[in-house]
């Protein structure tokens, strides 16, 4: 029952969005060793409190967003475009 304030479309119901995983993970280069890819794909922390997540506004503008959400209270404190250049653009 989240409401996500898409920086492009405004506040929308979470049913318009698709969850896209942990935004704190940095994927390694494609030619990185198997171990680095194993870390990125399988190893996750399970934080209690504020957390950064990827969401796509799939039934809206389709842009990928980074949503800062508290895993305990579900309070959303920040929503920004995944692409840094777009963050600059809308400032």
């Amino acid at each position: 029952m989240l409401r996500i304030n898409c920086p492009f479309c405004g506040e929308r119901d979470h049913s318009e969005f698709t969850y896209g995983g942990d935004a704190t993970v940095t994927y390694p280069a494609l030619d990185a060793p198997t171990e680095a890819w194993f870390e990125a794909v399988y190893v996750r922390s399970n934080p209690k409190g504020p957390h950064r997540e990827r969401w796509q506004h799939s039934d809206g503008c389709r842009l990928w967003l980074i949503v800062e959400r508290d895993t305990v209270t579900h309070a959303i404190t920040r929503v920004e475009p995944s692409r840094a250049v777009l963050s600059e653009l809308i400032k």
Partner: protein
Amino acid sequence: MTGFRLKSGGAIDRGKPLSFSFDGRMLRGFTGDTLASALLASGQRLVARSFKYHRPRGIMGAGVEEASALVTVGKGAHTTPNTLASTEELVDGLDAYSQHCWPSLRFDLGAINQLFARLFSAGFYYKTFMGPGKRPKSWLFYEHFIRRAAGLGVASREPDPDHYESREAFCDVLVIGAGPAGIEAARVAAEAGLDVFLAERDFLLGGALLHESQPIEDTDARDWLSARERSLRAAPNVRILGHTTAFGLYDNGVAGLVERLQPGASARERFWVVRAKRIVIAAGALERPLVFGNNDRPGVMLASALRAYANRWAVAAGRRVLIATNNDSAYAAAHDLARAGIATTLIDARENLPASLLHKSKEAGVELRLACVPLRTIGRCARAVEIGTADGGGVETIQCDAVGMSGGWSPTQHLLSQRGVKPIWNETLAAFLPGATGEPIRCAGAAAGTWRSEDCARSGRAAGAEAARALGRRAPDEEFPGPGGWEAPIRPWVFGGIKGKAFVDLQNDVTLDDVRQACAEGYDAPELLKRYTTLGMATDQGRTSAVNALAVIAEARAKPLDAIGTTTFRPPFVPVSIGALAGAERDQHLLPTRRSPMHDALVAQGARMLETGLWLRPWFYPQGEETVDESYLREMRLVREAVGICDVSTLGKIAVQGPDAGELLDRVYVNAFKSLTVGRARYGVMLRDDGIVMDDGTSWRIGEHEYFMTTTTANAGKVMAWLEELLETRWPDLRVAVTSVTDQWAGASVAGPLARDLLQALVKDVDFTNEAFSFMGVREGSFDGVHCRIARISFSGELAYEIYVPADYGQALWRVLLEGAKSRGGGTYGLEALGALRVEKGHVGGPELDGRATLDDLGLGRLASTKKPFIGSALRMRPDLQRKDRAQIVGLMPVTTGETFKGGSILCAAGDESGHGLGWVTSVTESPSLGQWIGLGFVKGGLADWEGRTLLADDPIRGRRTLVKVVAPHFLDPEGKRLHG
């Protein structure tokens, strides 16, 4: 004697009689009645049989606390089981039926369970059928009989014919409950200018004021109520929903509400999702039963229910009433009944009472006995009560025909508990009060343990003002009154001297002895007790039983009640029909239906359509009386011998544009695309990060900076989202844009030896000769002036092309293709033939791309580039994914020509059919070209271990076993002569 209608009074309209039926008997009531009040007034005492022991039960409550009188309403497809008689508004023609009774309510065979009551005690099912030393099958054997004998009402097996709606709403303040607290909270918030939503479970507003005989704030309760209701209804910023129960509170101020609508309305129920900035819970408190022998008999009711029936519905439950209490609240009930002319005896567990209470009782004509508790009722429907002192002494029998009881009050904690808020035990009031919450939720009135109506009103005003101020509005100062409001303290829980079965949970048939036994066996924590005895489960959710049960546990463990812990209440607070939750999203409205641009032309031609995901696609094109098998075999022959056309518009299509388009494809496909020359297409496979195959398809190089990517129909959305994710979250520096153009292009596959001839006649500006337009070539041209894109690609192994035109020209394209195909002895082919053709050729499809297979498992390992990395290239090299004994793709043929086998069969070594076998069969078809059945499957070790050997395709579900030979998965033209010809 039984219940009857009083001569005057009540909020019923005696000028508007209603008729209804109960178990087929025609009865009458009035507008304003509930089913329960009308049944009581008609003298109907026996209303239900209990859940486990099938004991006779009557009406015990006047609202949502009712735990006995569950009935089934409606008949046929309109049947609604487990309806509380006390909350069901009476309407003309209502049909109600008793539950759990066979063959009839009066003579119920299941009541024999009472004789075996010792067997049915706490944990009986588990110990007898599932405990240590019991064979696991014994539960499976007995379960059927147990479930038949016990259980709640039975739902209709027919499709639900009713309509349901769902709504979303936003408001500043959601007020749950329209008693004095809720009404005042709504009024103050509305006067401060807030957008207010007021939900009331009852069909009238007022809560406890509806049966209040005493004035509130120096005004007659009904006048107080109607003045406020008028102004609330007139306020433009207040939405009032009656018949509406808030059943769940969720994150971020979201409440789930269900509204029952009147017969003839646009829907039967309406499901509301209300998002509120602040929530006021003014849901009142529920009276607790007293625990004593046979406290479940018809005629035994809550004292507040006796009062409500008398005052609001002008129904007396009996002519001689005995009320037992341990607190002040039952005095008002006794006084009102006595004033209505009912002979009323009030027994109070307490000894020293203030003079005012004694005086008022005397004035009203109530016979008052102090230091007295009920021990048991006598009679199938209570006709007398044995009373005595708290330790069981001084036993005396008092004749009566209705019994009231008040064991104290429990503020409604359910919604707050759903939010994870632990209630706080108040010893003085013997009640759980709301605990602290960080959310903008406030309990007001009796829900906060405030007993007196005037205090409830004040509490509501304080909650309304608090909400207003929190939302930046001005509001009058009002202090929350403290909890309580009785003149003398409650004396809770006297369990001494009780005789016979004393019920703690009436709905689930859990007795005092059951709870004590469970505690003795070590199930003495609330959550354990709940599972061991079923106390607090089902539709009741422990509304009247939870606190009494904790008291029994506390006594058994000799600990204070607040050291015992509580159970967490879960949504829904009241049963919510699946229909209401589904709303309009059912049948064909559950998901959108997608139709290809060719759809109408296909249907006009007689195609039988098939649902695949959201799409409707042509399955086969029967001629005359042809079956699907006859049809697809004929369609395959058309393709192999002449030319067939197939609608492929549903394939996913993505325009990949920009200077880095080739780089993007190089990264997502396992094979190279940057090096593809303009005017060529290539088959590609994509992996997921974890090295498992995600999707396959062809990408066509349209220009230096532009590719036309196709995906499978099933994965079109997934691949699009994947490319977007990669570009936005991982590779923002790539200069490339991806656009879904699936709906912009209509496409057809033209396959068969005459495909070239057909297309050349149609598209004059493209040279289709083998030299000019070789396999995997891409051309742009026009037919009848319409731009088209053509690639020479083949899924069937024949000479074949895919031709795309702008979607609006799809049907035009289809018509000319159809004409051309027919004139060459060809025709159309559907999905069934398409699937069969690709199995003959050994192409993998949906059943093989199952999210578990690697590139090597699919026999596609040689596609993977060694010159560049790609998504999945690292993790596909994990040792487990490189094991030689992984299940890998093989072709399969029955050893005996003419035998068949089925997809989904388990592949095992003949003679060793146990366990999971060595593999499985994915796709099977009859092959007209080979004159026998063929299939694809996966087997451990793949072709390397099994080529030429025999396996057993075991299909234990459908009872078929076929010996199959393992062959290479390219059954037809492995050299590709047809393809390149």
